[in-house]
């Protein structure tokens, strides 16, 4: 008897293991499949007007856009009888989660993406078929978005997603530090250096370094690349992508952009332990006035403000320009939602996305993200938005529609610029070697494309 029971248990164990492998996830299964994911589905109490539908939604940014996402999920259920099962994957593994779902032909109905390149590389690295996502150009809400946030995401006639938020790179600064030291906002490089010297003399770190997180090291070179290279040649991105020009051709300017952070470190402008400090500590340094500014993206504004709610925080363009030149302000608009062509609930997916792109949800989203809306009907009333808008409209500022990143390389180049720049600060490489590496990578990718 015991033997039979044991045998039965063994067979049951095998059967359970096998069932676990390869089964296609149902919406219910997807909510429990991974312990590292978060699932939110609103319970409906309202009258439901339409046919019931279930949609799976994959994202990485629930924590940043919680207000908008919760409202979207709840109202989709209440207004349209659409249940949205959200899978929130951690940001650093999002690419792999998405790739795994694509590989297993298990693409969620709605997929949040940072970018799809011209070469159809999803998130800049996963080659996808042009038919993988549906065309959303005929959604009514699309007409409310600025042309750049639509045209950048069109491949042929097909619109894959609409960029919903625009960010800018600059300095998030503590106004009290500037006021106490009687400092004006700098408008060129010499003034910037003079301001940093005065702040340093007051025993305050002019720049909070958070370079433990490699991505933050990219910001200064990105701003400098815009000033030194892109302002002179607005088509530099396409030229580098197609091989019309190379990084070696612009070696002096690229090296100047890469070496700028080290120059600030050598001058004593960057807070100590910059390679061991993360953004949380750096934001708090600015919020509490231990450092004057954090050079980063507008998305960090809220974190700096939250570190000290009573502090007056401002935003400025970082001027790496010579006197008389305009200061460039790198901006980017990305971050949209695609509809899988394979969805069995196409109408429901379009309805849900239409609602997400509309003013109701977008207004909440912009407040969540502290971003600049790309939807012309959305107005934001936050202090941070006012600060950022002010800079965007300054006559001395030249707004660039993009900033240097992986998109300035041919499609198949995979690189981690943050790690490369961190390696540069740690003396593991030189700016000459980085220029050579990027030139070689581009050449190799273009050669392979031929």
């Amino acid at each position: 008897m015991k033997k039979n029971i044991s045998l039965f248990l063994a067979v049951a164990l095998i059967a359970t293991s096998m069932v676990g492998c390869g089964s296609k996830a149902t919406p219910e299964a997807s909510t429990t499949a991974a312990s590292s994911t978060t699932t939110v589905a609103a319970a409906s109490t309202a009258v439901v007007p339409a046919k019931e539908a279930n949609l799976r939604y994959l994202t990485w940014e629930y924590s940043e856009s919680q207000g908008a996402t919760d409202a979207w999920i709840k109202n989709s259920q209440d207004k349209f009888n659409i249940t949205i099962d959200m899978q929130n994957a951690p940001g650093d593994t999002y690419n792999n989660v998405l790739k795994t779902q694509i590989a297993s032909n298990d693409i969620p109905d709605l997929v949040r993406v940072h970018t799809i390149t011209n070469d159809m590389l999803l998130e800049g690295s996963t080659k996808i078929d042009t038919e993988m996502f549906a065309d959303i150009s005929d959604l009514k809400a699309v007409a409310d978005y600025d042309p750049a946030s639509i045209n950048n995401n069109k491949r042929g006639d097909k619109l894959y997603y609409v960029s919903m938020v625009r960010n800018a790179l600059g300095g998030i600064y503590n106004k009290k530090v500037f006021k106490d030291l009687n400092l004006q906002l700098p408008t060129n490089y010499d003034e910037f250096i003079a301001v940093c010297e005065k702040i340093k003399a007051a025993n305050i770190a002019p720049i909070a370094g958070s370079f433990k997180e490699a991505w933050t090291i990219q910001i200064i070179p990105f701003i400098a690349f815009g000033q030194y290279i892109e302002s002179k040649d607005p088509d530099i991105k396409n030229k580098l992508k197609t091989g019309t020009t190379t990084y070696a051709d612009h070696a002096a300017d690229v090296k100047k952009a890469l070496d700028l952070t080290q120059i600030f470190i050598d001058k004593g402008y960057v807070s100590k332990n910059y390679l061991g400090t993360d953004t949380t500590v750096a934001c708090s340094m600015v919020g509490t006035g231990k450092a004057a500014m954090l050079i980063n993206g507008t998305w960090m504004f809220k974190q700096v403000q939250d570190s000290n709610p009573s502090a007056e925080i401002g935003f400025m363009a970082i001027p790496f320009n010579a006197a008389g030149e305009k200061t460039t302000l790198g901006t980017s608009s990305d971050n949209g939602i695609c509809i899988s062509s394979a969805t069995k609930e196409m109408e429901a997916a379009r309805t849900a996305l239409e609602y997400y792109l509309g003013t109701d949800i977008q207004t909440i989203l912009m407040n969540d993200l502290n971003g600049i809306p790309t939807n012309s009907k959305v107005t934001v009333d936050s202090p941070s938005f006012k600060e950022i808008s002010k800079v965007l409209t300054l006559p001395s500022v030249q707004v660039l529609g993009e900033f240097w990143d992986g998109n300035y390389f041919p499609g198949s180049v995979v690189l981690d610029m943050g790690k490369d720049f961190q390696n540069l600060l740690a003396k593991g490489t030189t700016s000459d070697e980085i220029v050579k590496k990027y030139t070689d990578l581009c050449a190799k990718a273009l050669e392979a494309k031929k």
Partner: protein
Amino acid sequence: MKSINKKITEIKWFSFLIPSLAFYLIFFVLPAISSVFFAFTDWDGINYKFIGLANFVEMFHDESILTSFGNTIIYAISITFFQNFFGIVLAVFCMKKLRGLTFIRTVFFMPAIFSALLIGYTWGFILEPNIGALNTILSVLHLEFLQTSWLSDPFWARFMIIFVTVWQFMGYSMVIFVAGLKAIPNELYESANIDGAHGWKEFIYITFPLIAPSFTINIILSTIGTLKLFEQVYAMTGGGPGYMTESVAITINRLGFGGTGTRWGYGASMSVVMFLAIMFLTVFVVNKLRKREVDF
């Protein structure tokens, strides 16, 4: 009839092995074999094409990969040496007839049973330069001149990875050495004492040669473990700053699963090189160490 029943019984008992065999096959053997195949491709997790030896050629021209191989050698040699050195010192100490020795042995061994990730993150907090315990204590003691960026200065970061790994696993080596020490017959020490050998001489001429089997197993285990070093580096520095503290295992992870990582074929080729290195090194070390083992 009897033989049929016997076979049925054997099949029944064999069925108990199937779950573990299936797991071993699916999650270890198949991926291991397929990684050899993918090492010769540009696999990005979905698509691949055969590219011959290109990954291997690139590997030996890639500065960051060479750095991680160099780091791994530094980690392997330093950790193996210090872990075993302190392991035997602790083992000899634990053989003394002292009160509370069982408790002391437990304390020394305890870090080895904790997750290396947990230990790594805990030390990461202790060594954090701005609000970490170590720099705070140094400040309280007015020893600010000793404060440094423990995990962001490449030299100190490597040193700390070695220190924490040795601290965690020296108790593990100690236990194996204690077992070896206990197996040495007491008569050998008694006759050595009669011949006038005490203390250091006793250790050099009796203890050290007779615990050779413990040395062999300890050195093999710590060498293999450190060549695959991952958790401590991942938790304490993430391989940074830049690529300066990356081990091979961290580099493989970065290539496959990092922020922009999609070069799984390239990562697989590194795994193959690492596998071969570990295999040849282990065979070499085992052969060398076996020769100095003494039967008694």
